Every structure is written in structure tokens, then in C-alpha cells.
């Protein structure tokens, strides 16, 4: 019996009356249960020794307006020991939008539930701090609902304000925020912006702590992250990440684009891992449409992603060193990264916003001299990595600043849905390239660096990232000879429902002309279904959940980004360390705010 069959059987035994329909599509299982059984089911999934779903990877919702029950709340559970995923669906009717919160079972549900509350207006009873996460707190509607109009967001500074103002649906100027997320006495709460506010909570007997707004403009928050930092002297009492400053509604926008036109949107999320964003999205669509990908395209995807894993880790390591004061490592890392960006530019025409992968393959074939430049990069890199290690690994100040800072255990990491190098630094051997091989990763000989210490810390994460760069070099070195053998072979699928025919065919084939016309006017039309495609991005599990209603626009594109989950560990990791450590801890989580806020 496969693990998923065991899971279903066990669930049927335990929750005989409650299990609703079980939906299987492209090898993914979605179990529908009533709201009342959710908490018990989550507890059962997590604790049952035969199941061991250690991680809640995602919580999201679908809005099926005008259907009733209107909302599906989806919970994605992952079992690391059995390498199984199961999705649980709770249906909610529009008048009655609340579900029990899973934060007591999976602490990592915290941000996800706040996000669903914010964007869909679904309440999670029992949530410790249910406030808006991405949109500002004066927002009254819920943007990801289908009846929320797209466009005409109030942009106060545009010079055409008067022109567009009358056209806005029910436009009112946004009120100024009066309260902000903060922390008093270690508990997160909303605090007023001015001391004259009558509800000022820290009059009199409160503990004498200082609240610092670290960000949204701060040199070390790696983007527009605001950390509501409560300190006692220099010691951190609580560090609440407050996000949403970079929220651009990419998921909402994608619902109004055809599948193909949504590709460049996702470049803008994790701007250090653009190939990964493209890859996960096209893989999800390919899974939805069941498209074959030619070998050459797969090899190119592997090589480019691994190259980008290196560049992303270079920035992670470099900026971490910079935050701790060793600026030189950062400039060295950027020097190496430039070489790789030159390769990306030659391949995709852009250094960062690559948008290079297409459904069933690539946008265009590789340029001449590609393998030579990749080889040169691979040859240059190892001695340079050695150089960084010479600067850092034996430096007593560096060791003192990183060893034992932000210690967390594997249990913490799993409970908070942490993935990627941070999870491996805690000693959990989990890499999606090994666990659920995609793109033919099973053919490559490489190791997943895992920490052998009982607790992860900043230094351990640094070691893991350095080693991962070396492993990526190994993978690319194995892929390059294979790639050279496929020279001249097709780089995109021959499936004409997905990829356009070659230009030459249009002149001779009526059918090709029709395909071309349909693809460029209407776009692709996948079948109805719900698929999830996860990949191992430099930061962890990056997955696209695509819900298709059979039309040419996606019904919902949900991005499970690694930074989002990794960031919410910040209060846990930084407690009782110093302000100076916090910047190192933020650098360790290696968040990209575009990836967090989307």
C-alpha cells in the first residue's frame, strides 16, 4: 500500500462519518472534511505514528463565486518520513466564514491563516493574533475574493489623480493608519501611533522596554520589511515581522491574465530566484495539462536553476557577512555573481527578470558559447569560495557572532513550516530534489548537505549554503556533457496545444496556422483541476497551486513561497539575543521581501 493509500484508509477508519469526497487529480489527493472535524484531523495527521505529517506547508483558499458553499479552505500537509502530501479541503458557505485555527497544532499556520483572513475574509477562531497581514489595516475589503474589482487602486501621487478618480469604483481616499502592529511585554498587539491616543497601553506599570521600528526603511532588513522590535536595553524581548509593504497582488493579477502572460509576473516575486519562479509555475501548468518536456529543455532548466542557486546563495552569504560587518565578502560575492548574470543575460536577454521558461520547454534555444561560459564560471568559482572561507571560517569574531546565535531545533523548524537550507541546518535531511525528484534530478550524483549538530544556528546555515553551492557545481558539471549531446534537438514540446509551431510551418500547414492563432489570441486552455508543483528553490519549498476552471485564465494561482514561512520564525529565533544579532538572523533566514509579500 502506498503511503497515501495508508493515509486515506487511516482517515476513513478514524473519521468514518466525516470524510467527504476524495478528489484525485494528477497524483494529488484532496480530502474534503467538515469544519468540525478539522482540528481533530490535523492533530491526528500530525501525531499518528503511521502518518507523521510533520509539516503544514500551506493554508490557502479558493473563491468559487457564485457557487455555494462559496469558499474552499485548503490545507496542505506534508509527511517527511513517508514523502507524502495530502490536501484537506474545508468548504464554507458565504454567510458563515470561520474555521478553527490550526496554530495550536502547527504553529507555522500563523502567517498563513492571517493571510487568508486578510485576503479572503475568513476568520480563524482561536488564532492568537488575527490581524491583517499583507494589506494595510484600513483596508475594508478582501482582495482575493472574486467580487473584489481589479485595478484602480488609489495611487495618491499620480499626476492623473483627478482624471482617474471619478472612474474608480466607490473610490474614497484611504484613511491614515492610526495603529500599528507592535509588541508590548513580549506579546504582539496593535499599538497607537501617537502617545496622545487615549488608548495608549503603556501608561504606568508596564515593563520598561523600548519599541523600535526596524524598517520598513533600514539597511539590514533586506527589503521593505518592518520589524516591530521590542528591546530591553539591547536585548530583544520580541521581534514581530510586519510585512505587506511590497504586496503587489501578483496572485490576484494572475487571475486576470492568460496562463502564458502570467509568467513575467512571477519573476518579480523572488527576484534572486527568477528561474525558480518560472520553473515552478511552468511545471504546475505542465502538470495540469500533462505535457511532456524534451530532454534538452530539462537539462537547460537544471543548469540554469543550479546556476541561479549559486548566485542566490552568493548573495545570501555575502549579505550575511556584510550585516555582521565583513563588507568585503559581499563585494567579492557580487563580483562572482556578475559573471553568472552575464550568462543569464546571454540566455534570456535579461540579467534578473529572465522569464525564460515556457510551458513544455524554453522560450528560445541557448545562445552559442553557452557551455563554455558556464564552464568558465564553474572553474572560477571554487577558489573564490575558498577565499570567502579564508576570510570567515577561522575568524574568531565571525565565529563568535554566528555560533550559537538563533539556535533552533529540527522540531521548531518543522512546526514553523521552515524549508530549505534553514531546515537542513537543523539536521533534517529534506531536499525536494531528492525527495520528489523533478527535471531528472535522480540522474545526478550529488549530496544534500545536512548539519550534524543537534541545533541549527547562523553559522550552520552559512556552512550549508556554502556546501550547496559546491553541490550545484557538481550537478552542472554532470549536466553539461549531456546538454552538449542534445545540440540541435527540440527545446520545446511538440504539443501544439501548448507550444506554438515553428514559424516555417505556418507557411505550409493550415493546422499549424490554426494552432498559432489560437495560442496567441486565446492562450492555452487547461482542463478543470487543481495541481500543486513544488520545487526546491534556494530558500526552500517553492510551490505553485493552480486551480483551473477550464477557461483561458487561471481560476486561482497560489504561490507557496519559502521566505514567507521562514520569516515567521523571527520572533522565536531572535528572542533574548541582541539587536546586533537580529540583523544576522534576518540574513540567515535569507528572505526576499518580494517573495514574502508577492
Amino acid at each position, binding site marked *: 500500500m502506498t503511503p497515501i493509500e495508508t493515509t486515506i484508509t487511516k482517515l476513513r477508519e478514524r473519521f468514518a462519518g466525516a470524510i467527504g469526497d476524495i478528489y484525485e487529480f494528477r497524483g494529488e489527493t484532496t480530502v474534503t472534511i467538515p469544519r468540525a472535524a478539522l482540528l481533530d484531523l490535523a492533530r491526528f495527521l500530525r501525531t499518528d505514528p503511521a502518518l507523521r505529517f510533520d509539516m503544514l506547508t500551506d493554508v490557502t483558499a479558493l473563491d468559487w463565486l457564485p457557487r455555494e458553499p462559496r469558499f474552499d479552505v485548503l490545507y496542505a500537509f506534508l509527511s517527511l518520513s513517508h514523502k507524502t502530501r495530502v490536501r484537506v479541503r474545508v468548504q464554507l458557505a458565504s454567510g458563515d466564514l470561520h474555521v478553527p485555527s490550526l496554530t495550536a497544532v502547527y504553529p507555522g499556520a500563523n502567517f498563513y491563516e492571517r493571510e487568508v483572513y486578510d485576503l479572503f475574509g475568513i476568520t480563524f477562531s482561536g488564532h492568537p493574533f488575527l490581524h491583517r497581514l499583507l494589506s494595510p489595516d484600513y483596508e475594508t475589503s478582501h482582495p482575493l475574493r472574486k467580487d473584489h474589482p481589479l485595478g484602480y487602486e488609489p495611487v495618491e501621487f499620480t499626476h492623473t489623480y483627478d482624471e482617474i478618480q471619478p472612474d474608480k469604483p466607490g473610490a474614497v481616499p484611504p484613511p491614515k493608519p492610526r495603529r500599528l502592529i507592535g509588541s508590548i511585554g513580549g506579546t504582539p498587539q496593535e499599538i497607537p501611533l501617537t502617545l496622545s491616543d487615549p488608548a495608549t497601553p503603556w501608561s504606568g506599570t508596564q515593563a520598561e522596554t523600548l519599541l*523600535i521600528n526596524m524598517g520598513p526603511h533600514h539597511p539590514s532588513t533586506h527589503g521593505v520589511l518592518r520589524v516591530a522590535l521590542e528591546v530591553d536595553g*539591547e536585548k530583544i524581548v520580541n521581534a514581530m515581522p510586519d510585512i505587506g509593504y511590497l504586496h503587489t497582488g501578483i496572485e490576484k493579477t494572475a487571475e486576470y491574465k492568460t496562463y502564458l502572460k502570467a509568467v513575467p509576473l512571477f519573476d518579480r516575486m523572488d527576484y534572486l530566484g527568477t528561474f525558480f519562479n518560472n520553473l515552478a509555475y511552468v511545471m504546475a501548468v505542465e502538470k495540469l495539462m500533462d505535457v511532456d518536456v524534451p530532454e534538452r529543455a530539462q537539462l537547460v532548466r537544471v543548469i540554469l536553476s543550479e546556476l541561479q542557486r549559486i548566485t542566490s546563495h552568493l548573495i545570501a552569504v555575502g549579505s550575511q557577512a556584510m550585516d555582521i560587518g*565583513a563588507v*568585503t565578502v559581499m563585494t567579492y560575492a557580487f563580483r562572482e555573481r556578475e559573471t553568472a548574470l552575464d550568462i543569464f543575460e546571454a540566455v534570456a536577454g535579461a540579467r534578473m527578470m529572465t522569464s525564460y521558461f515556457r510551458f513544455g520547454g524554453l522560450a528560445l534555444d541557448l545562445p552559442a558559447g553557452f557551455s563554455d561560459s558556464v564552464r568558465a564560471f564553474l572553474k572560477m568559482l571554487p577558489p573564490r569560495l575558498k577565499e570567502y572561507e579564508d576570510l570567515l571560517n577561522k575568524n574568531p569574531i565571525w565565529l563568535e*557572532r554566528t555560533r550559537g546565535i538563533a539556535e533552533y531545533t529540527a522540531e521548531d523548524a518543522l512546526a514553523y513550516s521552515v524549508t530549505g537550507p534553514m531546515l537542513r541546518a537543523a539536521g533534517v535531511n529534506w531536499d525536494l530534489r531528492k525527495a520528489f525528484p523533478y527535471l531528472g534530478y535522480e540522474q545526478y550524483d550529488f549530496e544534500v548537505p545536512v548539519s550534524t549538530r543537534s541545533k541549527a544556528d547562523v553559522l550552520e546555515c552559512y556552512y550549508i549554503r556554502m556546501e550547496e553551492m559546491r553541490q550545484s557545481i557538481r550537478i552542472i558539471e554532470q549536466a553539461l556533457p549531456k546538454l552538449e549531446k542534445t545540440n540541435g534537438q527540440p527545446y520545446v514540446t511538440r504539443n501544439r496545444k501548448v507550444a506554438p509551431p515553428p514559424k516555417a510551418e505556418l507557411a505550409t500547414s493550415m493546422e499549424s496556422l490554426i494552432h498559432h492563432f489560437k495560442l496567441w489570441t486565446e492562450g492555452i486552455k487547461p482542463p478543470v483541476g487543481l495541481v500543486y508543483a513544488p520545487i526546491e528553490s534556494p530558500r526552500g519549498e517553492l510551490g505553485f497551486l493552480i486551480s483551473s476552471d477550464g477557461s483561458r485564465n487561471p481560476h486561482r494561482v497560489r504561490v507557496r513561497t519559502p521566505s514567507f514561512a521562514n520569516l515567521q520564525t523571527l520572533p522565536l529565533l531572535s528572542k533574548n539575543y*541582541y*539587536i*546586533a544579532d537580529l540583523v544576522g538572523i534576518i540574513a540567515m533566514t535569507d528572505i526576499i521581501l518580494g517573495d514574502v509579500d508577492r
Partner: protein
Amino acid sequence: MTLEPWLITVIEALIKVLVVIVVLLTGFAYLTLVERYVVAKIQSRVGPNRVGAAGGIAWLQPIADAVKMIMKEDFWPAQADKVTYTLAPGIAVATALLAWAVIPLNPAITVFGYTINFYIADVNVALLFLLAVGSLGIYGIVLGGWGSNNKYSMLGALRSTAQMISYEISLGLALVGVLMISGSLSLVKIVEQQSFWWFVFFQPVGFVIYFIAAVAEVNRLPFDLPEAETELVAGYQTEYSSLKFALFYMAEYINMITVSAIASTMFLGGYQGPFGILPGAHWLILKILFFIFVMMWMRGTLPRFRYDQLMRFGWKVLLPLALANIFVTAVVLVLIGK
């Protein structure tokens, strides 16, 4: 026309003061350029290459920087304490400059029968004066941090206070060894005693302790906690702009020159050079530049300490070492019967 002797003294002092200030301020301006080149080379970057670049060196960059600084808006935080906020940069620069009153630059020379001493004042307690003035420099930072009404500035000022107190002790104690050997507090006498054997050969430990404490004293990496830009944005100078900001920078660089000058004077024989090929002041300048280069090199190589680690290092490593150094020096001096 003959001048009264007291008038000559006053004019001489004024000229010297003027020369020292002009040299220091120019030195500060060009040190920023040197620092940018040195750090750029270490970090494999190009460095400034636009303003008045000739032969790959942007000679006019400091002037452009100065003009830029003057043209910037002079920003006042809404609830800043006007008096302290304005006073702070001035105190920082004034104390940094004051130290130069007692540092001898060159052996005395005689022109037209008139002896010119290359120091502004030969104070008999010059060393104590140096330490005292150095300690006053903290007021610039503390008042700046306090007056800005900014939490980052405040934290920077607090860090700075703690740091200065802990390192000043080691700094002073490291110099005590030299005093015991020289038997004088006058810098002129101390330099004159080092005509052959520099004190660094008698006081190697004291020298190392002094240099480390001095780097901490001038807030340079790895001890630049008061301004730690990745943590505290810019620490005590967060709210400063325009000339006030420039003054803080000026103070920092002049302090760098000062502590290097003290290190050269106390340990490396000041203006005394080997073989006497170059005039004395050249030797002093070379030695000062060497120390400054080492500080820049450290900035390019080392990460930053954390606040508590810094304190631990100061109190638990440097201070006991400095005390042990004094003890050993005393024992040796007694044994050789000096």
C-alpha cells in the same frame, strides 16, 4: 621695527595653530580619499574615478565631497534638543583638534637666531592632557545621540559611552609602561629619549594593547558599534546632515590621525627616524600613515563585534593584560636598578 617678545610668541603660536588646523583638515579630506581607495582595492572595486581624475586618482573628490556636504539641507529633527544637537558636532571636532596642541612634530630648528619648536605647547603633563581631551570627545557623541531624539541615535550614544569607558582604561594603562621607562609626562622628552631604541622594543605588549584600544576609541571596525550601519542605521549620526554630519566625520578622521600620532610618539620614536635621512616630520607622517593604513586594512577584513562581546574583550582580556604589563615592567625596572 622690533616686535615685543610676547607678541612674537603669540604670533608664532597663532601661525602654528593655523598650520596644524589647515594640515589636519586637508589631511582629513584626503584621508577619506585614501580610505576609499584602500578599501576599494581590498574589496576588488574601482574606487572614486570621476571627479578630477588624473592618472586614475580622483584628486578633486574631497573638494567635491566638501561642496556637496555644504550644499545639503541642514536637517533638524522635529523634537531634537536644539542646543545639544548643534553643540555635539562642534565638541567632537574641537576635542579632536585640541590634542594636537601637545604633539611634537619635528626637532627644533633655528632660523635667523630664533629657535622654532615644532609643537604648539610643551606641557609638562602632556600625556595626561591627551588622555583627558580624548575622553572629552565622547561628549560629542553622547550629546549628538541624545539631542537627536532618535532611538537609533540614543542606542549608538549609549554603546559609545560604555565602549569609551571600558577602553579608555586599557588605553591609559598601556601608556603607563612607557611613562615608567621614560620617567616623564612630556611628549617632547619622551620622543627625545627614543633617539635610538624605540619604546616599542621595551613595551611590545603595551603597544599592541594601545593600538587595539585606540581603534576602539576612534570607533573603527571591528569596534564601530556606535555607528554600526547594519544595526543602528548610522548610530549617533543618524539624524545629522550637511555640515554637522561632515563635522562628525572630520572628528573621526582627525581622531584616527591623533591616535596614530600618539602611537608613533609613544612607541615608535615620533619624529625620530633611523639613519636621519629624512627630516623628522616626514618620519612622523610616515608612521601615522602606516597606522591609518592598518586601520583601513582592518575595516576591509574584519566583521564587527557585538556589544557584549566587545565589553567582555575590553574588561576581561585587555585590562588584565595591561595591568600585567605594568607589573612586569615595574619588576624589570627594579631588577635592572633604573
